[in-house]
């Protein structure tokens, strides 16, 4: 059995003179959690709608779990659980009725349907609201209902379009945890324009801009594109009697002597406190070495943080202006 669960080949979609997608190619393997990242209007939802057989591509092809989206759309739809953008639900239905209908639509009936509903309700923490009408649920719970209906037939592939949009931080956190759990057993593709979601949830990121794949990499590798990480450390004198100049010089000497350190820059200093920025030679995380070295010399560490490896920078580089189209890896996509 092939390890590739989703494969898009040269997908294009045109609406009149507007190119919503241009030659988008990528593949997603079994068990991957892939973030589909891009600004509004970049083509994320169009791609998802092609993969779920809602839209037909203008050219190109795609297979989902071995079934062609055009030639075997029923086969594709059997393999996927889909949560569309903004979680459209039949709000006049009770949660249990709705999930029952969803199970029936997938050919699951009787005791088996009830068992599946109980399982997904537990997975998505819906057990307490099964008897409630959907219109009386909070946004977070509605999102859970949307995810539950996508899971009820235990699909090997989950396609989630902006699953965290409109949720408060607590709700988003819960849904993120849920998606991470689901990703342990399934192939998950989730579209979003929220970078935090991707960093926390996904093993791989596809960035789409102006209808083209602008990047296809792991979150770590993408962050690396933003440049080397830097470490800012704020120190206080452990020994009050130590002279101010001696305190600053000793701290710099200590940090400069560390392995893999390229430079140490002074950012700010005030009476008894100093902030230094450590620039590493490579991409190593030096926080442990920094704190160990300073603590041994009796310095009091007031703060230590990593800077400069922000996915947001990469996202902006890849998606703002004309750079999107000219970025290496654009248009063809790298595939998995």
């Amino acid at each position, binding site marked *: 059995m092939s390890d590739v669960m989703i494969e898009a080949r040269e997908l294009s979609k045109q609406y009149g003179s507007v190119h919503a997608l241009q030659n988008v190619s990528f593949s997603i393997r079994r068990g991957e959690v892939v973030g589909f990242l891009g600004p509004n209007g970049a083509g994320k939802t169009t791609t998802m709608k092609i993969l779920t*057989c809602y839209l037909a591509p203008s050219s190109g092809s795609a297979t989902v779990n071995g079934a062609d989206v055009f030639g075997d759309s029923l086969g594709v*739809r059997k393999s996927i659980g889909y949560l569309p953008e903004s979680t459209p639900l039949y709000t006049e239905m009770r949660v249990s*009725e709705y999930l029952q209908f969803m199970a029936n639509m997938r050919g699951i009936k009787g005791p088996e349907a009830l068992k599946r509903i109980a399982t997904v309700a537990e997975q998505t923490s819906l057990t307490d609201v099964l008897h409630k009408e959907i219109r009386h649920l909070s946004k977070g719970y509605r999102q859970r209902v949307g995810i539950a209906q996508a899971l009820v037939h235990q699909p090997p592939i989950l396609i989630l379009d902006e699953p965290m949009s409109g949720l408060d931080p607590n709700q988003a956190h819960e849904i993120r945890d849920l998606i991470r759990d689901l990703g342990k057993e399934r192939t998950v593709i989730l579209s979003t324009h929220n970078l935090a979601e991707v960093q926390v949830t996904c093993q791989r990121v596809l960035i789409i801009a102006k209808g083209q794949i602008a990047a296809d990499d792991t979150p770590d590798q993408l962050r690396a594109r933003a440049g080397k990480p830097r470490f800012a450390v704020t120190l206080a004198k452990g020994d009050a009697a130590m002279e101010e100049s001696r305190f600053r010089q000793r701290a710099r000497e200590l940090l400069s002597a560390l392995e893999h350190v390229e430079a140490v820059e002074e950012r700010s200093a005030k009476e008894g406190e100093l902030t230094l920025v450590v620039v590493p030679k490579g991409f190593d995380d030096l926080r442990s070495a920094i704190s160990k070295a300073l603590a041994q010399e009796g310095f009091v560490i007031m703060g230590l943080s990593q800077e400069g490896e922000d996915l947001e920078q990469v996202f902006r580089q890849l998606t703002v202006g004309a750079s999107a189209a000219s970025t290496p890896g654009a248009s063809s996509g790298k595939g998995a």
Partner: protein
Amino acid sequence: MRALFALLHRLVAFEWLRLRRGRQLRVAALIAAAVSAATLVALVASPEAQLESTLNDVFFWGMFNVFAYALAFVFHAGIIADEVQARTLAFLVSRPLPRPTLLLSKYVAGSALSWLLLWVALLVVEALLGLRSVTLLRDQGLWVVRAGLALMLLTALYAAVASMWSALLPEAAATMTALHLGIFEFAGSWMPGSFRWISFNYAAQQLADLPPRGLLPELAPLVDPVAAAALLIAATALFLGLAIWTFQTSEYRAST
């Protein structure tokens, strides 16, 4: 085929539940109550000698020119349009179900509710007839059933017309249905002479054996009941086919 019917049955059951929970059923029941109340007033106020012609008026105005149109609007103008506006269409078509089955199930569920309300209203008319005059009930009871069957065919046709516009232009489904039924069906049924052929409402009236009305009724064509029934069924199949074809091939970008 058995699996298809099982699927259709589940979809119809779901639509039935939604329609009952939604406001459509309440609106339609209100219209049915209003038509029944008007019938009651007309029959009570009518002199004995004019009861038969009053009954014809009640059917012509209340059933053929109000109720049949209203049912199509209430149950079918939103058949696809509501799904597009609520964005549930993307979700619905991602199920492993053929699109024609989806539309057909919605059509059947709406039509079943329409017919149920129609026969409730007709039973009320029969009861009122019996209360007013047992002789009238005996003479006209079967005619009411015949008119009911004609109305069933007409409501099925109007449901297909509304479904077609709902699938074709979801953003303006109600307006287009109103224009279509208003121009071709209502106005058409008042046209002089052979122009009446454009109105299936007139064919249904002929099937119900209602005397011609409108402009120059004496020149209006007399339609054979079998031909009228065949015409109504063929037109329903045509409009329903167009609705299914449109739904099958449309992308409904507005829903994105």
